[in-house]
């Protein structure tokens, strides 16, 4: 990675390992399947988090979403370029997918971890999750297990920055 232009030159094209295994790849089918699966993921995420990741709007459900501004995140975590502005809702290159999920992937090899909204569960079980914010209001209890396995790293990122 230190010399991204040079590292591909080291693989000789004749290397026995460079080979296609299953014949030609149908680009069109690849694109269709990618879009369908991505839509699938978004639908799943939408139901799970009561949040529309395409339009980036909160929906009715178990979680209260609130927009957060100026988290003091390092630039690295902020979406770059014209499609990265906070209010550029759903302004990704491909309209069918959310910027939350797709942010910055075209820029490099790494999926950026960034969120423009904070999810605040109504359950007060985990104090670090609702540091006195509007999310601390009472609500029905809900297990935290599903919270921890999706967007786990994102959530940690956001909340660790919120602590003084």
């Amino acid at each position, binding site marked *: 990675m230190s010399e991204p232009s040079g590292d591909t030159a080291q693989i000789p094209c004749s290397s026995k*390992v460079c080979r296609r295994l299953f014949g030609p790849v149908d680009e069109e089918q690849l694109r269709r399947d990618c879009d369908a699966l991505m839509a699938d993921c978004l639908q799943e995420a939408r139901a799970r988090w009561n949040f529309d990741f395409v339009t980036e709007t909160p929906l009715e459900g178990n979680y209260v979403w609130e927009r957060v501004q100026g988290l003091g995140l390092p630039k690295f975590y902020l979406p770059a370029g014209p499609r990265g502005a906070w209010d550029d809702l759903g302004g990704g290159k491909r309209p069918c997918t959310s910027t939350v999920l797709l942010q910055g992937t*075209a820029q490099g090899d790494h999926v950026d971890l960034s969120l423009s909204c904070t999810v605040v569960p109504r359950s007060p079980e985990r104090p670090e999750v609702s540091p006195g914010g509007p999310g601390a209001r009472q609500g029905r209890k809900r297990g935290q297990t599903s919270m921890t396995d999706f967007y786990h790293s994102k959530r940690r990122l956001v909340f660790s920055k919120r602590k003084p």
Partner: protein
Amino acid sequence: MELLCCEVDPVRRAVPDPNLLYDDRILQNLLTIEERYLPQCSYFKCVQKDIQPYMRRMVATWMLEVCEEQKCEEEVFPLAMNYLDRFLAGVPTPKSHLQLLGAVCMFLASKLKETIPLTAEKLCIYTDNSIKPQELLEWELVVLGKLKWNLAAVTPHDFIEHILRKLPQPREKLPLIRKHAQTFIALCATDFKFAMYPPSMIATGSVGAAICGLQQDEDVSSLTGDALTDLLAKITNTDVDCLKACQEQIEAVLLNSLQQFRQDQRDGGKSEDELDQASTPTDVRDIDL
């Protein structure tokens, strides 16, 4: 003027952390959570229509070769296979997507485990440019979504040090045992038979197979046979009979691979296409039998 030329390994590794390796709670926690990361079903029977078991072996062999040529960390290949199996257990996939999927899984596993990860461009070259970096990046998100971003899967490698430190082997024998066990683990990852086995069992069986294999040439262990199996089984809470069966399967897979390799060497002049079908992990040659 005299010049001194030092070669510095560009990859920086953390030193082994005794707080992690010498604490039994870590081992117990690994044993508790490992099942969460197993594929949900035997997908050739219930999910896949196009993909056949031999195709998984083909893509696995290719992935192992890429990882070896790129000198990836040992864990990258088994972890990538875990992603591949978990994805295929949930998503019916045409065979024409399988190599792309394998590349995506290596891409993700490498990023999780390596200081200097594989790049998208490199991986695309290894597919003979049948896929583009952009496609790789888009499918990366698909795979992440389908795996629910649960990437920190437990692999057999996580257990190796925990097992080795509880064996009464002389310290100087450990590096060789470790190396052979790692090769067995890679071998298991190429074979679908082992995809649904808990990683702790594969690790325990691989260490057992490594010690038994090495024992034939030199004295690496004061414990052998049933006594060794009993101790190994106790370390990872594995059923003794299951462990025996697993170790026998591992040894059978090795034998099979070696025969295949010798076969390939005899038929040295065969066509490129046939070579592609070979299922011999190259590392097997390093094992002395």
